[in-house]
């Protein structure tokens, strides 16, 4: 151990390397305006979600004002419709009010944390399940691998929305059950992804070296192989935050919402569907929010892949 660099030096070198990597990442980010836009949108939606309780009263969705039903008094937009009610009173409702007389803008701000939270829960659980089972399947091989693989086959043979509908129908429409229903359709992709990563990773010399020095199998798998093969999973996870929001809101849109009042983006659109031609703002703005948030995460995930994919670099 005399010829190697001293620990301090090594630390300094790696931290310098890290800084260079980060700077290079930032440089690529600057060169790619679309990714920059995506990361800003994703970041903004997370910040908005975290602070929504401070901006808007969290109990707003429970209070209804029949007098303020379906009205619009934002002078910037003229809907060109025959019967648009003008909200009485001095307050300007930027995005109008809904059929319970609640401010649509505030409802959207309340809904963002709920959708993001559900999406994060689902993606993180799917990543966890995928990492553990995919890693075990690939590293153990043999009949265990075959069993896990066939299990994912079964779940991948049913379209995810359909399976989620069946599950939500039978389990009942609570928020937990809806989350579970989407999760059940989501984990197999991650198992497959992790498995293929670990399969290539476990053939590398460093794994053999670890085995030679007597490291345990669990330790090799979860301390060494998994951290080295987690990166495509992270990219997929970022991309999926958007897709899960889409699936979840689609589920609540077709009527699986726990309550018609609940501030959830798909449910807000569902509540507006019967007023499409009289109060279009009820569907336009909540839907636009889903679109923008999920686009943000998709652009971010796409960008991360491009920035860190060594094949496309330099």
């Amino acid at each position, binding site marked *: 151990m005399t010829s190697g660099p001293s620990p301090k030096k090594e630390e300094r070198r790696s931290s310098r390397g890290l800084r260079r990597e980060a700077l290079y990442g930032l440089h690529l980010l600057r060169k790619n305006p679309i990714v920059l836009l995506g990361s800003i949108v994703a970041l903004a939606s997370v910040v908005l979600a975290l602070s929504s309780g401070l901006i808007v009263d969290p109990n707003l969705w429970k209070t209804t004002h029949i007098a303020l039903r379906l009205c619009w008094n934002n002078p910037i937009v003229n809907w060109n*419709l025959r019967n648009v009610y003008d909200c009485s009173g001095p307050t300007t409702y930027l995005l109008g009010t809904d059929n319970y007389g609640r401010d649509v803008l505030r409802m959207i701000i309340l809904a963002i944390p709920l959708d993001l939270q559900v999406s994060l829960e689902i993606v993180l659980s799917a990543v966890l399940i995928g990492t553990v089972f995919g890693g075990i399947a690939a590293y153990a091989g043999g009949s265990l691998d075959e069993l896990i693989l066939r299990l994912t086959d079964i779940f991948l043979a049913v379209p995810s929305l359909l399976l989620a509908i069946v599950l939500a129908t*039978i389990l009942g429409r609570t928020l937990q059950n809806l989350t579970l229903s989407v999760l059940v359709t989501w984990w197999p992709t991650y198992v497959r992804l992790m498995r293929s990563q670990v399969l290539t990773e476990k053939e590398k010399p460093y794994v053999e070296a670890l085995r030679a020095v007597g490291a345990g199998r669990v330790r090799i798998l979860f301390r060494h192989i998994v951290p080295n093969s987690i990166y495509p999973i992270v990219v997929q996870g970022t991309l999926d935050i958007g897709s899960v929001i889409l699936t979840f809101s*689609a589920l609540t849109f077709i009527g699986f919402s726990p309550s018609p009042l609940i501030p959830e983006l798909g449910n807000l659109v569902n509540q507006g569907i019967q007023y499409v*031609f009289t109060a*279009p703002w009820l*569907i336009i703005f909540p839907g636009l929010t889903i679109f923008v948030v999920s686009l943000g995460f998709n652009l971010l995930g796409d960008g991360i892949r491009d920035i860190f994919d060594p094949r496309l670099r330099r």
Partner: protein
Amino acid sequence: MRLYEYVLRRIILMVFVLVGVSLIVFYLGRGLLPPESALAPYITPRMDDATKLQLARSLGVATSSCPSWSALAAHESVCLVPVWGQYLSWVGNVLAGNWGYSLLPGVAGTQTTWDVFWLRFPYTAELAVAGTILTALVAIPLGIISATRNNRLPDHVSRFISLGGYSVPAFWFGLLLQLLFVLYLRVGGNALLPSNGVLDTSCALCVSSPGQVTGYTGAPILDALLSLNPVYFWDSLVALFLPTLTLAITSIGALTRILRSSMMEVLRQDYILLARSKGLKERVVIYRHALKNAVLPSITITGLLFALLLGGVVIVEVVFSWPGVGAASVVASTVLDVNFLELYVLVTAFIIVVTNLLVDIVYAKLDPRIRY
């Protein structure tokens, strides 16, 4: 391994997957819901308790030692067959097409679930096929443009379109289209579509009107075509337009990205370099040499896309009140018509695994480099 050995292996796996799907579906319906819900589709109002008990026994829900219907209704343990014991009799009924009466409002008790499903299925299949075709028509050129003009403006635009399509909520997009075509797009003062919003998709009416369109397949476009009826063909084509657009917009992104990356992979190959250094025109290089190899993965994806769209059409059908199985499944879930949902899942799963297999065989035939 020869091709037929490979196919044989795949068919065995296919059966395994289908049994797995049926086990899950069966367990969800029977294990998590009370036994009455399993009997509900088979019971008609006029049945007396003795008949009901007999029915429950023949369906394998009640044991032969069960004393009376009321004992079963009270969930007494003498009567209840364990869930795993019910599976075989359930499979027998499923394979015989004995799904009981539909619980859907309007047809409840008069039509069987099997009939209701297959009456509606052609509409869904038609939509899924149209969506697949439109996706391929848009995504393939977009993918080529994106790859050949990599990292320039057309690539950025096409990437933005594909990612945008990937991120747009289908239900919102469908509603926006309706809003646009009904309220805001006007030609000479008239809206492009009738005022109540939803396009007339009820070609079920034109199928039933005698002498004009014969219901050969149940899918309006095919029927109109086979009956050589240009008016109804046009009508059903127009009715198909917006739902297909909505369905395609979400899958265009995925296909474009796959085509882009495979095209870029192919363009890096040596034989492309050779073709270019021979002095071939760029157009010839791309369309005659690169495209043939790059389009292969898209064929796989297009096949799978059709199968996935069969299940994914639910939202589009709801938004456009399309008379297919997807919209019906949402209604089925509100009245707890589990049999309808189970049938939908099983049929879709069957189509998906069969399509998977067919696509792989076609792939092997198209690409001589692939050996099994």
